[in-house]
């Protein structure tokens, strides 16, 4: 195997995988803790990409744009929770259906305002790095490093007192409320945090993929598969499987051609059938 090609594929896989990890980690927080199936999560990612792109074009520094994209999507997540998911919490199907409707509104709203075209956002980091005879583009490396930074931040947050309360609520809501944790607040925090992560994922990946209004649909399937294979509410699993998905997509496209997606999906279906609760998941019971 050509060493150069291998390293480039590895880097591409890591870039894709890191964006998958951020989106899937956000979804696993929302789904594991708040127990709602947010089908608009992928469109939050799309909106994050557009907000970041617009701010960068206005001349705002990249790190500030990243934070603003995260905050804006966190606010949107809060609004979504209060307007849609809280009143419909008792019915799983209605939350799914309304989040689908929200997704339509967001995609079409972006198409109406921005137009149906690709928004190419140039990366702030330019140039290449030569390491052991292979060239690594700084643009891709920066994507991996920024998402690593976001994940480290999330890890530190989850180690704090609020984060531990969040984890307790994920495992058992009634048990957590016996320990003096208000589960309602934890659900709101999980929703805000998850949506903010989706927005940041879009902002991080946009120099590599370019923003387009329909980019939410493919990622929806991907993060659903990652979360189900990894296990509901398992952050560790989301990180490992997310990176694996990115690598499989990058290498699979190179070696299998366009059939890679179908084969990957069938593998996912087999894993789902053998272990319905995911590899790192615990059995999740919510009757519908």
């Amino acid at each position, binding site marked *: 195997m050509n060493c150069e090609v291998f390293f480039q594929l590895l880097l591409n896989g890591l870039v894709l995988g890191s964006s998958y990890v951020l989106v899937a980690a956000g979804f696993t927080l929302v789904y594991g803790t708040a127990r709602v199936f947010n089908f608009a999560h992928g469109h939050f990612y799309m909106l994050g990409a557009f907000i970041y792109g617009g701010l960068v074009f206005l001349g705002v520094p990249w790190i500030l744009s990243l934070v603003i994209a995260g905050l804006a999507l966190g606010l949107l997540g809060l609004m979504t929770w209060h307007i849609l998911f809280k009143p419909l919490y008792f019915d799983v199907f209605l939350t799914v259906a309304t989040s689908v409707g929200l997704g339509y509104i967001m995609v079409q709203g972006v198409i109406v305002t921005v137009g149906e075209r690709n928004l190419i956002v140039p990366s702030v980091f330019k140039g290449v790095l030569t390491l052991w005879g292979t060239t690594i583009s700084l643009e891709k490396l920066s994507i991996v490093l920024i998402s690593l930074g976001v994940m480290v931040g999330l890890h530190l947050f989850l180690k704090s007192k609020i984060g531990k309360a969040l984890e307790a609520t994920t495992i058992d809501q009634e048990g957590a409320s016996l320990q003096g944790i208000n589960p309602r607040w934890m659900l709101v925090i999980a929703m805000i945090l998850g949506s903010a992560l989706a927005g940041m994922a879009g902002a991080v990946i946009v120099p590599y993929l370019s923003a387009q209004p329909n980019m939410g649909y493919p990622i929806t399937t991907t993060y659903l598969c990652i979360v189900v294979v990894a296990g509901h509410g398992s952050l560790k699993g989301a990180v490992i499987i997310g990176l694996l998905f990115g690598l499989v997509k990058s290498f699979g496209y190179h070696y299998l051609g366009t059939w890679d997606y179908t084969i990957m*999906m069938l593998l996912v279906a087999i894993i789902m059938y053998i272990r319905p609760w995911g590899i790192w998941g615990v059995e999740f019971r919510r009757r519908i």
Partner: protein
Amino acid sequence: MLPFKHQKGLILLGIFLALIFLPSIIGSQHLIHIFILAGLECIVVMGFIAQYHVRLLTFCAATFWGLGAYTSGFLSTKFGINFWFCLPLSAIITSFFALLIGLLAVRAGWVTFLMISVVIAEVFVEAIGHIGLLGGWDGMGRIPRPAIGSYVFLSKASYYYLTLGLATVCVLIFMGLYKSAIGKAWTAIGQSSDLAESVGVNIFKYRMIAYVTAGFTSGLSGSLYAHYFSYIAPTSFDIVRSLYVSINAVVGGLGFVISGPIIGSIIIRAVPEWLRITDKYQPIFEGLVIILCALFFRKGVMGVLSKYIPLRR
């Protein structure tokens, strides 16, 4: 005032007569086209509601539709089989696939079932796109219109009657099932699957019946769809289409298993035309409608109507 039973029968008769004379009332060819689409869609939505009735949430409703369409298109273009054989064959093949998938997936929990349905919806589009024999991403064309002897169903009005006939058949199938012991078991499972299991209802069996029936009727509708457009592409049966099906179900009313899908499909198809909403704003309209329905009219349009009209189910 007439007794309840007669009133209900009269209203049903009136609606049916109105649907029969519809093409002569509305002159516009485009409106008839809208009604044909609504009729084809309402069959799929009825299947979706039957699955929802036994608490199987699925996002591959349009996949079975597409399976029926592709079976019918393949048989009629490659082997030259008559439409009247293609129609039942595509329904049988679609229900066979539904049986296979159901045997694997129905026993799993609802989350897994939902996810497997998402995977199936994606794999179907990708797989059809890669098979050259079925036309690939370019789609399959030149599917002939159905014909009896020398009469070909070319005009929109004649195809409307064909659709109306098939929709009536599907309504009768579902009505018969809901009225029979199977329907009672479905309702019991829908209210509480644990309770139903404890009194000896075989949940797996009745869920499979709902799943396979939905596959069968979707196959019928898909066959008619393929012969109507005479061109089908894999992307017209993707997951977005399946999500539209669930939107129709919510708008019509999830508790109304026959009238809900019909009213919901007609509203979702006809109201944007009536209000002259362009393609650009149609998804926004649909999103708003579903959110408003879920928040304020939880029983759907039929839930509101049934307060004034004594129609049930």
